[in-house]
Each structure stands twice: as structure tokens, then as C-alpha cells.
């Protein structure tokens, strides 16, 4: 048993803090709602029937457990460590997002809420939320930056097919953070019947802890599967980070296994430089308060929030979950940045060597694997989280590679 006093898994405290990070920085109108949510979540957490419903749906609706896959050709190609992929891209809706959405929607139903709102960047969380709402017959409204609505048209259409109302957000600069602002504005207006389903491990307490707990199924499975495959835990685990929910899901069950190296990979965009053309909050930001929590943020000298930049719309957020900020400060996890160019290289290599088209988000994690694996011995085991599939990204990748998909040969079919 791990000594409770030396455990990394006891957070957050009663104020919703991980060290100095997290908290409940919301307006008074939302405060009672957040306290009610915390209360209901605390009850659900220890209620076997809640987890029984989750387990059933994870298995029969999402398709869990997701496989742990030994990427043999990639390992061989890189000529170092043994590389495993946790295949969460095989989940229903194509990413890890649904793990969390199921939990929140079941909770919303228990709380008697009839209207679900969500923010989305790339559209993966929006699609997952629209999906589960369709399954349960709940009204679903998704806020999405107007800029993202344009560049993620297939996901917008998916959400509409699933019966969701997609609201293009034009306030601010029309990106993911503005979508979150507008979702909060909706919630503050429709407090009685509405549940806000946040897509990542950020926001006011209890969201960072709750979303982590729902995503922790990734790490729990990976641990068991790794024991079966190799008879021991991996040496290194790696995941990409925007807000950080897939990473927190993989990392959390390993936090007290201090022999396991933990690496989070942020989006370095065009490079972590003074021009701030990146989304690397930990590598290139500093602590601040936004969207209900204290965490590392991209901001200017005056404390104004800056827009991030990344080829991956799913990593395009100027903040990061507060638990990551804490793990960074105490040094339990290491955080690095990968550029768009490096991620694109990894995307292509994964397609060619493994027959897996990864999303651009895990392509960042994979790019870091490519950097470190060649230098590691062959008995070093790496487990990376393949948290999403790349179907949604083919247009972006084509553009980046200079391929015209609107021409006669590559014409996009509606």
C-alpha cells in the first residue's frame, strides 16, 4: 500500500486545490451550482450502481477496454525502446472524450437536468456530448468558436446529425476559450435545467477531479494490460496535452508508481518563442486565473489572455488542467513541447508503419516518442496514449502537405 502522506493521488483538497492550483473562481450565480455538482459527484463516486452503469456503457456502447497495442514496426524503425499504444482512438466517436461525457451525462440525469451544454474546439468533445445526449434523449447545445466551425465542418455536420444545436461563437476571437466563455454565459443564464459538460480536466472544482476520475479508466486498463503483456509496468508513459484530459486519464493511476517516468507533450505550434505562436501553457506560460481555476496560462504582461496557436484544434487552448500545473511544479511529471512540423512527421510515420491514422493531438505525443525512443535500450517500455483517430484531420494534414483535396482527383465527397 502506498503511504497516504506521500501519495500523489490524494488531491484536490477541500478547496479544490492541487497545491496552489485549481480552486473555484466563478461568479456567485454559478457557485451554488458548482457546490451542488460537487455534492452529487461525491455521492455518485461511492455509489456502486453509478459505476455499474458506467461499466456497462463503457463496455457495450463505447467498446472498452481499448486495446494495448505493441507497435512493433515503429519500435523496430526507431531502433530503441519497445513502444506500446493505448488505443483509445478505437472508442465509439473516435477519441477518449466519450469516457468522460458518459460519466457527466449519467450524473446530469441523476440530478434531473434536461439540457446539456458543452464547449468544443476540434469538435471531438462536441460530437461525444451530442452522441450521448442522443442516446439518452437530452437536449444538447454545443458552443464552438466560429473559426473552428469553419475548419472542422465534418464534425459540425456530425453534431447536427446527432440532433445537437451548434452555436458558432463570435465573441472574443471566436476560438475554444471563447466557446467556453459562452458556455459559461449560457449556464449562468439557464441555471435551473442545464448541466455544463466540460470536456477537459479544467474549470472550477469539481470538474478537474471529476473529469480525471472518468478518464482514469485509460490508465487503469493500461496498467493491467501492461502487466499481462510484459509482466511489469512501463518505464515511460506519454500523452499529448491541450487541456490535458487524456493525459491525466493515463497518468493518474501511475502517479504513485514513482519508477514510471511521466511525460506530457504540449503543442509547440511554430515553436515556443516570444511570438507566442504555440499552445504550450507550461513551457511558455505562467500562473493565472481563467475559467474557474488557477493554472498556467498564455497571457501578456497585463494578465490578458493570449490566443494559442497549433495545427491541432484540439490542443488550441491557452490553459491547462490545474493538476498538470501542480505535477509540473512538484516535478512528478515532465512537460515538453512538440512543433506542428514534428507532429506532422509523426502523423505520417504512424500511417505508414502501423496502418493507424492518428489524430493530430496524439501525433504530438508520438513525435516525442520518436525523439526519445532511439536513445533508449530495447528493454525500456514506453506507453503512449493514442487518444484519437485522425479522420477528422485529413483535410488539415492535406493542406499542410500541399495536397489539394478539392481538385477532381481528391474531391471531398459530402
Amino acid at each position, binding site marked *: 500500500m502506498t503511504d497516504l502522506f506521500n501519495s500523489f493521488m490524494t488531491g484536490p483538497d477541500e478547496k479544490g486545490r492541487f497545491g496552489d492550483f485549481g480552486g473555484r473562481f466563478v461568479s456567485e450565480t454559478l457557485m451554488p451550482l458548482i457546490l451542488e455538482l460537487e455534492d452529487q459527484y461525491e455521492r455518485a463516486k461511492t455509489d456502486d450502481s453509478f459505476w455499474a452503469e458506467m461499466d456497462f456503457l463503457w463496455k457495450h456502447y463505447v467498446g472498452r477496454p481499448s486495446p494495448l497495442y505493441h507497435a512493433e514496426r515503429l519500435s523496430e524503425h526507431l531502433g530503441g525502446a519497445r513502444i506500446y499504444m493505448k488505443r483509445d482512438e478505437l472508442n465509439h466517436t473516435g477519441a477518449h472524450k466519450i469516457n468522460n461525457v458518459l460519466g457527466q451525462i449519467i450524473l446530469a440525469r441523476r440530478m434531473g437536468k434536461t439540457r446539456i451544454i458543452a464547449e468544443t474546439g476540434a469538435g471531438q468533445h462536441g460530437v461525444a456530448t451530442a452522441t450521448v445526449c442522443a442516446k439518452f434523449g437530452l437536449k444538447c447545445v454545443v458552443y464552438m468558436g466560429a473559426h473552428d466551425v469553419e475548419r472542422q465542418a465534418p464534425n459540425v455536420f456530425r453534431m447536427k446529425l446527432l440532433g445537437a444545436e451548434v452555436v458558432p461563437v463570435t465573441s472574443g476571437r471566436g476560438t475554444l476559450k471563447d466557446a467556453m466563455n459562452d458556455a459559461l454565459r449560457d449556464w449562468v443564464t439557464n441555471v435551473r435545467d442545464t448541466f455544463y459538460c466540460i470536456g477537459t480536466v479544467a474549470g472550477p472544482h469539481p470538474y478537474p477531479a471529476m473529469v480525471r476520475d472518468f478518464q482514469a479508466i485509460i490508465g487503469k486498463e493500461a496498467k493491467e494490460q501492461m502487466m499481462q503483456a510484459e509482466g511489469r509496468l512501463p518505464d515511460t508513459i506519454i500523452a499529448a496535452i491541450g487541456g490535458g484530459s487524456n493525459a491525466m486519464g493515463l497518468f493518474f493511476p501511475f502517479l504513485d508508481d514513482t519508477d514510471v517516468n511521466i511525460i506530457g507533450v504540449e503543442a509547440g505550434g511554430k515553436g515556443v518563442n516570444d511570438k507566442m505562436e504555440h499552445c504550450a501553457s507550461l513551457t511558455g506560460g505562467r500562473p493565472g486565473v481563467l475559467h474557474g481555476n*488557477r493554472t498556467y496560462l498564455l497571457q501578456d504582461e497585463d494578465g490578458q*489572455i493570449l490566443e494559442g496557436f497549433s495545427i491541432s484544434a484540439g490542443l488550441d487552448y491557452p490553459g491547462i488542467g490545474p493538476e498538470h500545473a501542480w505535477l509540473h511544479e512538484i516535478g512528478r511529471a515532465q512537460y515538453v513541447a512538440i512543433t506542428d512540423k514534428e507532429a506532422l512527421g509523426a502523423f505520417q510515420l504512424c500511417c505508414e508503419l502501423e496502418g493507424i491514422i492518428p489524430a493530430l493531438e496524439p501525433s504530438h505525443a508520438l513525435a516525442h516518442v520518436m525523439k526519445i525512443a532511439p536513445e533508449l535500450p530495447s528493454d525500456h517500455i514506453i506507453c503512449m496514449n493514442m487518444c484519437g483517430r485522425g479522420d477528422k484531420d485529413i483535410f488539415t494534414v492535406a493542406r499542410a502537405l500541399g495536397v489539394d483535396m478539392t481538385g477532381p482527383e481528391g474531391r471531398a465527397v459530402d
Partner: protein
Amino acid sequence: MTRIDRTFEALRLEGRDAFVAYIMAGDPNQDRALEVMQGLPDAGVDIIELGLPFTDPMADGPTIQLAGQRALDGGMTLEKTLNMARAFRAGDDSTPIVLMGYYNPIYSRGVDRFLAEARAAGVDGLIIVDLPPEEDDELCIPAQKAGLNFIRLATPTTDDKRLSKVLQNTSGFVYYVSMTGITGAAEVQADTVAPEVARISASTDLPVIVGFGVKTPEAAAAVASVADGVVVGSAIVERIGRGDAVPEVLNFVKSLAEAAHQGEQVHD
């Protein structure tokens, strides 16, 4: 006693309700914002709420959002907002200034440094939307110690159980948010606000001022008649934003102030 306390004391003796006007610092530009601000006391404004621009104003509707954006686009910062307060204070030593905004620019500057600078600039109180009582250690308690009022929002979701917590470290006045929603949203209904104001007043000696959704002199009069005062923000900011000349803006403010001052006092 702060300027805010003195102002309410004077209003009480005169038997008048308070009229509070909100403008955004640096909107539409720094010079005109100051010009408007300097004209507010003569237009009948008892307390000035000076908006501190922020990129992500989660509790504000489009009107205030755009005002903040205009200000930021024009180079407005926290430091320049304090300079604006100082410039106003140089010509007016009695009208209270309440800074209203979000926590991050203050946190970014450093709480102690900000409080010292704000006080030196002649700021009297703070309304920081994203700091509920649960986060009082952050700024509320240090602000009170530094001699600034920390004015809290009470809302329709603040039930009796929470009310004492909300009132606990509040000073200056209580700002009752008339509806669940964002600034500049639906029209306020004085008859639904009245029992809420009464409920809060029963638990505190502080004046209760009502804001959100007050757009016209008629609404200002109706709300003032059931509270100790009324705040108008978006309706004023909208006129500044569409380019009304300063005298026109101030005439509108005057019509609001006169209406609000006609409201009957609910407290003795």
C-alpha cells in the same frame, strides 16, 4: 469610513437612493473615457463603477465584451486604468470609484502591489466577479485590510444558506444581480426584485443596490423604488460604443440619475 460609506451616509440624510453608473476604462479610447467619467458626478452619478478591461469577461453580455475589446485594442491596461482613476481623483475628491472586473489582471500584477497602487490612485472599492466567498483569502481579505471596500454580488441563486457567507466579508454595499444571466440581458422586473432585496436587507445593514438589465429611466426609477439604489451599465456603454458625443452620453446618464433619485427610500 471610506468614500463609499460617506456617500451612503449623505444619501441617507438627504433621503435619496443611489445612482451608480458603469463605464469601461479606455472605451472608446482613453481620452474620451476620462472625459465621460469626469462628467458623471454633475450628471447625478453618486458612485462610479469603472470597468477593468479583460479579454475573457465570462459574466458580461456582448455590449460590455465589445467595450472591453475596444479598450484593449486601444492599449488599455490595468496600470492605465489606475492612471485614469488618479486623473479623475485629481478633480473630484468625493465621488467613490469602484473598480469592476476579473481577477487575472490583478493576480498578474500581484495582489499587494495592486492594492497599494489602487489605493494611492483613489480607488475606493472592488467588485471582482470571479472571486466568490470561497476564495476570500485571495483578494477580499487583503483588500479590506488595505482599506478598500470589497463589494460582493448576491444573485437569485444565493439561497438563505449562502447569504450569510456572501455577506460575511462584504463592505460598502451589496450588489444584487437582478437575474440569472449576463450583463445587458433581459429587462429587469422590479416586482420580482423587491422580495429579494427585502430578504437581503433583513440580513445586513449595508445598502442593497440592484444591477443587470436596467436600461431605461423608467426601469431605473422602478428598481430604485424597491432598493437603496440602482446600477446602469450596458445601456450607457452601448451609447458610448455607437459613438454618441460625450454631452449626449451624459444627458442620457442624467435622465437615468434623475429617475433613480425619484425612487422612494425603502430604508430609514
